[in-house]
């Protein structure tokens, strides 16, 4: 018999606030955002952190949604969006991602590399320029979303692109939301010592070869808890 308590233990031990894997649409985004907001309000975290998490969640889900719409002929892309929000007292980690095409992966990689090198002031400047320059979008946020996420998360974003057998790339991000002042650039890539475990998302059909934090014990979550 399947060990049902295993999933309860995972959810409890890893403090999973919310998780989802599968196709998303506007209604589902609405539900997930409302659920996250309610759970955050109940957990009595600071208003500022609640708003950061919800805002980042919205950007992530809507990014995934737009990739689904742009690649609607690829069922694998449409079915791929995943999301996990993990809580550690006042801090949160958002794991998110979806399949993208090679061209999209190249674009995103370049964009995220640029963002990761920016100071807080440079991020703000880039945000203002992007906001002011862009034609008003008829759909999506035209790439400003990632800059917005980086600003809110004080640029604590880990990302990865994993080539899959189906020719697509799994684009995944780990975004840290912490109740603290901005850190200096050196400390941003270090793992949070408060975490007992780092949850590593492993999408079906891809091999994750590198862990976010090799010093910690890791737990792979497949579709099981979606």
């Amino acid at each position, binding site marked *: 018999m399947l060990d049902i308590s295993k999933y309860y233990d995972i959810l409890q031990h890893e403090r999973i606030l919310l998780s989802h894997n599968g196709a998303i649409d*506007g209604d589902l*985004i*609405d539900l997930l*955002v*409302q659920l996250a907001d309610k759970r955050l309000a109940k957990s009595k975290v*600071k*208003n*500022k952190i609640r*708003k*950061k998490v*919800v*805002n980042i969640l*919205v*950007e992530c889900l*809507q990014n995934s*949604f*737009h990739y689904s719409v742009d690649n609607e002929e690829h069922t694998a892309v449409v079915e791929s969006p995943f999301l996990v929000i993990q809580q550690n007292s006042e801090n949160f980690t958002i794991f998110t991602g979806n399949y993208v095409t090679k061209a999209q992966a190249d674009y995103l990689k370049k964009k995220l590399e640029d963002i990761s090198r920016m100071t807080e002031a440079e991020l*703000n400047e880039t*945000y*203002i320029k992007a*906001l*002011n320059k*862009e034609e*008003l*979008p*008829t*759909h*999506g*946020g*035209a790439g*400003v*979303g990632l800059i*917005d996420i980086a*600003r*809110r998360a004080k640029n604590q974003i880990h990302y990865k692109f994993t080539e899959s057998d189906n020719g697509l790339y799994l684009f995944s991000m780990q975004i840290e939301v912490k109740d603290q002042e901005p850190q200096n650039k050196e400390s941003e890539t270090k793992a949070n010592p408060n975490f007992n475990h780092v949850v590593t998302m492993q999408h079906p059909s891809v091999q994750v070869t590198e862990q976010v934090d090799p010093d910690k014990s890791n737990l792979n979550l497949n579709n099981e808890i979606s």
Partner: protein
Amino acid sequence: MDNIVIRGTSKTPDVNFDASTGNLEIKGRSIPENSYQFYEPLLSWLDRYAAEPRPNTLLTFKLDYFNTSSSMYILGILKKLEKIYLAGHKSQVRWFYDADDEDMLQTGEDLKQIVKIPIEMVEIDQEEA
């Protein structure tokens, strides 16, 4: 000219654009997937309002959440009001933010740098919110 009155939803804000008083208010959350659909009618309304604005126009933003595509349209609205202001009509913007919402404050400050119209930052105490 007609007013715009839209009730907010879990994704879109309350809108109250009153052409007879010049009080324009956007309040709540703005996280629609398709911001164009929601904001385009507001921008068209502002174009018509700009032809015959009230002597005083007050635009108020009291937002909880907004996504990046909304922020572009918020800037679009501010640019419409900037035109009215630069044409010599008294106009003002009030940008409300929760006392501990540093991101909302930051966006207000960013918008201030882009447009020439005066934007007043108004802090909301948590107890009142």
